[in-house]
């Protein structure tokens, strides 16, 4: 098991954004998370990637506890800084808004973290980057800067930047929502390609046909809970919950 999330709770002020969320991600699995806006999908990914701290529950990476519930207080406790650094190294996140570093060339966007965080040598980091850019279909952009690229190209650089860290699992938070419709295809294509290579991925998306085509499992969230999960066929074509049916009906027009 790459990741186990157990009874994750998260509050913002008085608002319970995540209520007892539990799921596992197996090695090589591709899981899509769908659900209406405000249902807590982003918060869930941000908790899994340590951008937000949980209020309760367990986060277990590769069988090793990153966070757990304190028996006495009922609150969450995190592993020490050294261990968290290791857990952070397991996971990557691709943002809706790309968040490339505008002052770095495409090459440096991809090589800087491996070199400065993991201590990789320049030659190896650059060779990896070239290989990743080739895979993303933008090997000719290495010397360019983010502002010179289209949104679809920028998002592919962001994916390459994440993959350069040699992750165990990659999270995507609506990776195509900021893109013009004609550019979503090129990004979905590389994610599909990664799925074919058995990369472990969790993708928050509103692209139902994509979710159907690539995921092993679909999770439907609403109001901070997992309403149902199962194979894409079960959840998307034959949902057992009324709320899921209602949500999906919006996409059928």
């Amino acid at each position: 098991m790459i990741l186990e999330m157990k009874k994750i709770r998260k509050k913002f002020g008085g608002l319970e954004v995540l209520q007892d969320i539990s799921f596992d991600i197996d090695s090589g699995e591709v899981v899509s998370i769908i659900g209406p806006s405000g249902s807590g999908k982003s918060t869930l990914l941000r908790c899994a990637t340590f951008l937000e701290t949980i209020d309760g529950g367990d986060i277990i990476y590769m069988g090793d506890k990153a966070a757990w519930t304190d028996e006495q207080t009922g609150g969450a406790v995190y592993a020490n800084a050294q261990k968290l650094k290791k857990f952070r190294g397991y996971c990557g996140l691709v943002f809706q808004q790309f968040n490339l570093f505008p002052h770095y060339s495409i090459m440096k966007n991809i090589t800087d973290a491996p070199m400065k965080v993991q201590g990789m040598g320049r030659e190896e980091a650059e060779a990896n980057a070239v290989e990743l850019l080739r895979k993303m279909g933008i090997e000719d952009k290495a010397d360019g800067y983010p502002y010179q690229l289209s949104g679809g190209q920028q998002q592919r650089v962001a994916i390459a930047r994440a993959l350069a860290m040699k992750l165990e699992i990659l999270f995507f938070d609506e990776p195509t929502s900021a893109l013009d419709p004609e550019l979503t295809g090129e990004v979905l294509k590389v994610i599909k390609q990664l799925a074919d290579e058995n990369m472990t991925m969790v993708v928050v998306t509103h692209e139902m046909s994509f979710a159907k085509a690539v995921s092993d499992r679909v999770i439907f969230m609403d109001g901070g809970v997992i309403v149902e999960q199962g194979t894409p066929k079960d959840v998307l074509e034959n949902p057992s919950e009324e709320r899921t049916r209602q949500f999906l009906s919006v996409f059928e027009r």
Partner: protein
Amino acid sequence: MEFSVMLSTMSAGMLRTGAIFALTLLGSLPLGMIVALLRKSRFAPLRIFIRVYISVIRGTPLMLQLLVWYFGPYYLLGLNIGGWRFPAIIVAFVVNYAAYFAEIYRGGIESIPQGQYEAAQVLGYSRAQTFMRIILPQVVKIIMPSVTNEVITLVKDTSMAFTLAYAEIFSLAKQISASQTSFMPFVIAGVFYFIANYAVEIVMARIEKSMDYYK
């Protein structure tokens, strides 16, 4: 007094003006960054102290601050520090300009999108790495026009050292004009300030251009 004699007498004043200018920048540019960061400290008393400091500095005339730094040690602490005039000037200028630079830095830092911090954190950059490698370079580009303004103001503000009878170019011009009943010293001083600021503009434009490679 011959023109050439006047010019060479005044050139000593130009050097002193240059010294105030250079030492003020050397001290206040980095100090301003420290102040900007402390302003966001998690330690509330420190945060409040910094806010009071910035607001007092901006709310009182630099000329008055010069007098306070120069006479303060004697009147407040009974200290008689030999040769305190020049150091007092530098301290007053550095403390004053650091407050203004701190506000410029703060504006720059706050304009960097949260997503930059988050992307860096997920990639495993430490807080220090995130600031030095990702945030600061972008801040520098953003604040350059405001810094240029401030530096040009500083060139002119050095004349306030006149308050403490320090013989920089402005004081000398006034002195020599009175003793020689001549208008020429003011012309020389004016041309000097103008050329100095012209040089500042050229240098800053170069720096801005060097950061033009991205948007």
